[in-house]
C-alpha cells in the first residue's frame, strides 16, 4: 500500500490542458496544396488509395473525411506542391450543429448538452485504432472528464454517439438500435476516415458505407485514426467551448 501511495505522489499530476501536447514535425496532418504551380498532371487523384482527391477544372479538392493521411499524394506530386501540415484540427460540424449563429436548434442542443456531455461509443466496423484513441482520452494525460465529458455504458444514458468504423452489414442493426435508444436531443460524431467517408476499404458485399448513410451525423472528425487531441477538438467544437 505504501508503495502505491509513493508511486502516486512521485508521479504527480500529468494531465495536460487541451492543446498542451506538441505536434511533432513528422506528423502528417491536413493536406495543403499550392495551386499556383500545379502541372495539372492529376497524378495525386489517381494515386490516392481512398479517392479523397477530386479535381474539378483548375481546382483540386481534398476530402479530408476520406483521407487516410498516408502521404502518397505528397510523394507523387510532380510539381511537389502538396504537403502535410501539422494541422490536426480538421473536425467539421454538420446537421443540427452546422449553423453557428442564430440557429435555434443548435443553441437549444448546446443549452442542454453544453455543460456536460455523456458519450456512448459504437464500433460499427472499425480496425480498433479509433477505438484505442477514444480510450486514450480517458488516460490521465488527456483526462476527458476535466471538460465535463464522460463515456457511459448505455445509449440510454448518452447525449452523443461516437461512431467508429465503416458500417458493416453485420453491425447495421446494432447501429440503428443504438441510435434509436439515445434520448433526444442527440448528436452523432463520425470518428475517423472509415466512419466519416466509408471509402477506406472500398465497396464490398460486407460494408454499407459511411455512418451518414444510415443515421444523421453532426460532427465529422477526419484521421486514420484521429489523434486524441483531434477528437478533443471535435468534442469542444460541438459543445461550442473552444
Amino acid at each position, binding site marked *: 500500500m505504501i508503495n502505491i501511495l509513493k508511486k502516486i505522489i512521485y508521479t504527480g499530476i500529468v494531465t495536460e490542458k487541451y492543446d498542451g501536447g506538441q505536434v511533432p514535425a513528422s506528423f502528417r496532418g491536413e493536406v495543403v496544396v499550392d495551386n499556383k504551380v500545379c502541372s495539372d498532371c492529376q497524378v495525386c487523384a489517381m494515386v490516392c488509395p481512398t479517392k479523397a482527391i477530386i479535381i474539378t477544372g483548375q481546382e483540386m479538392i481534398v476530402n479530408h473525411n476520406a483521407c487516410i493521411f498516408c502521404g502518397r499524394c505528397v510523394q507523387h506530386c510532380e510539381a511537389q506542391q502538396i504537403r502535410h501540415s501539422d494541422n490536426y484540427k480538421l473536425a467539421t460540424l454538420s446537421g443540427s450543429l452546422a449553423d453557428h449563429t442564430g440557429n435555434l436548434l443548435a443553441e437549444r442542443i448546446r443549452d442542454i448538452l453544453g455543460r456536460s456531455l455523456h458519450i456512448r461509443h459504437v*464500433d460499427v466496423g472499425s480496425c480498433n485504432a479509433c477505438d484505442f484513441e477514444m480510450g486514450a482520452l480517458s488516460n490521465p494525460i488527456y483526462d476527458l472528464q476535466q471538460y465535463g465529458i464522460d463515456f457511459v455504458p448505455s445509449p440510454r444514458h448518452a447525449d452523443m454517439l461516437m461512431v467508429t468504423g465503416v458500417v458493416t452489414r453485420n453491425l447495421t442493426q446494432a447501429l440503428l438500435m443504438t441510435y434509436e435508444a439515445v434520448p433526444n436531443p442527440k448528436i452523432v460524431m463520425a470518428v475517423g476516415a472509415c466512419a466519416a467517408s466509408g471509402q477506406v476499404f472500398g465497396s464490398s458485399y460486407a460494408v454499407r458505407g459511411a455512418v451518414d448513410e444510415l443515421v444523421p451525423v453532426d460532427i465529422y472528425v477526419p484521421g486514420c485514426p484521429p489523434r486524441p487531441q483531434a477528437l478533443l477538438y471535435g468534442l469542444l467544437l460541438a459543445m461550442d467551448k473552444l
Partner: protein
Amino acid sequence: MEYQEITARDLASQAKAVCSDGKFNLTAMFANDERSINGCFAIYCIFAGEGIFKGLKAVLNSEERLEFSSLTPCFPAAAWYEREIHDLFGLVPIGHPDLRRLVLHENWPLGLYPLRKDFAVDMHVPEANTPYPMVSVHGAGVFEVPVGPIHAGIIEPGHFRFSQSGEQIINLDAKLFFTHRGIEKGVEGLPIELAAYRAERICGACSVSHAISYAQAIETMAHIHIPPQAEYLRVLVAELERLYNHVGDIGNLCAGVGFAVGISHGSRLKELLMRLNERLTGNRFLRGMVIPGGVSQDISPDFSREIQNTLDNLADEFVEMMGLLHDNSAFLDRVNRTGILSRHAALDLGVVGVAARASGIDSDMRRDHAYSIYKKLKFTVPVQTSGDVAARLWIRADEVEQSLQMIRQILEEMPGSQGGLKVDIPQIKPYSSGLGWSESARGSNLHWVMVGENNGIYRYVVRSASYPNWPAVTVASPGNIIPDFPLINKSFELCYACLDR
C-alpha cells in the same frame, strides 16, 4: 513454397501424414477459386513445425460435388477454417461436427458465396433472416446471459452467450465477425501498392505486423531482398508495436480487476510510447513506415538517441509499475488460477503467441521461423506453464524487457541507409503465390497472396493471431465466475478486427 497437390477426398488422410504425430501443426487453411485458371477450387493447408512450413493443396473439380473430407475430427484447429470456407465458398467439409455459420450472419441469404470469382464485389445482396443458432445449456436453474455486440466500455463488438448456474459459467458461445469488412474480397484486382494500405488497416493495434506479413508475402513472390537498413527499421517498429501493446494491455488487465492505479500508470506509459511512435513515423500506430519493397523513411542518429532515452525512462517506470502488481495480494488473488487454458487444449486449437507461451508451448515465429533480422538479434522467449491470467500477464512483462533489449541492439547495429530504403517491385509471374508471416503482440500473423495479371491481387488471405486464439477464450472461461470473464478476455487481449477482417 511448394504445395503437395492431392484430391479433396484424400485431404484428411494426407493431413494426418503431414502432421506426423504432432511434429507439424495446422496453422492456416483457406480456399481459392481457381476455376478461371484450371477449372478447380483449391483448399490450401499450411502446417508449421521444425522451423519450416509444409503445404497441402486439395483440388476440387468444379464439375463434381463441391465436398472435401473434414479435418476437424482429427484437427480441432480446423473447425473455424472449415466453417469459413463453407460460408464464403460453399465447399462442404464432410464430417464436420458443427457447420453453423461463422462469418456471415442472419442477414445473409442462403446459397450466395461472396468469395467465389463469379460473385461481383459490389453485387446487391438482399436482406435475409437465416437462422443463426447459439449453443446453450438447458436444465433446472440454468439461465442464459447474452452480452454484446455493443459493450459497456470502449471495446470492439462481439456477442457472447453465457450459460450460467449461479455465478459459474457452464458454457460460453461467441458470435463474432461483426466487423467483417470483406477486406480479402475488396482488394482483389487492386495493384499491390494500393492493397498495402488496406493490409495495414486490417487492425489498428497490429498495423505493423500486418504490413510486414503482407510485404514479405509480396517480396517472396517477387524474389527480391530489401535493403538492410529497411530490415532494421521494420523490426524496430515491430518491436515498438509490441511494446505499446504489452504495456497498454497490462494496464487494461488492471481494469479487469478494478485496480485504478495500475490502469492509470499503464495508460500513461502507453501514451508516452504512442507519442514516440508519432514522432518516429508521423502516425501514432506507426502506419506508413512499412511498404512493399522496404520502408518509407529513415531515422537520424539524433532520433535514435531520443528513442533510447525515452525507452530508458520507460523501462524504469515499467519496473516500478510491475512492482505494484507483484506485491499486491488482492491483485494476485484475482489473476492466479483464473481462466486456465490447458496445454493440451492450446495445442489442439493451434493457439499462438502470448496465450500459447503462457500454457507451456514454447513457440515464437521470430525464433522458430526467423524472418527479417531476428536471427541476428539476441533474445529469449519467455514461457510459463500455469496457463492462467497471471501467466499471460507475466509473459507480457518479460516480453517488454526482451523488446527493450532488442531495440537497443537494433539502434546500435543499424547499418545506415547507404544501401537505400526500398527496392521496386518487379512484374510478378501471374498466379504465383507467396506466404508472409510475422509475430505480432498477439502471435503469428500469416498472409498468403496470389497475384493475377499485371501485379493485381488475385486472392488475399489473412490468418491473424486472433483467429486460432478466439476459440481458446471459450475454452478457458467455463468453470470461472462470470465477473471474471472481462479479466480472462483481457488477458488474451484478442482483436476482433484482426479476426473479422
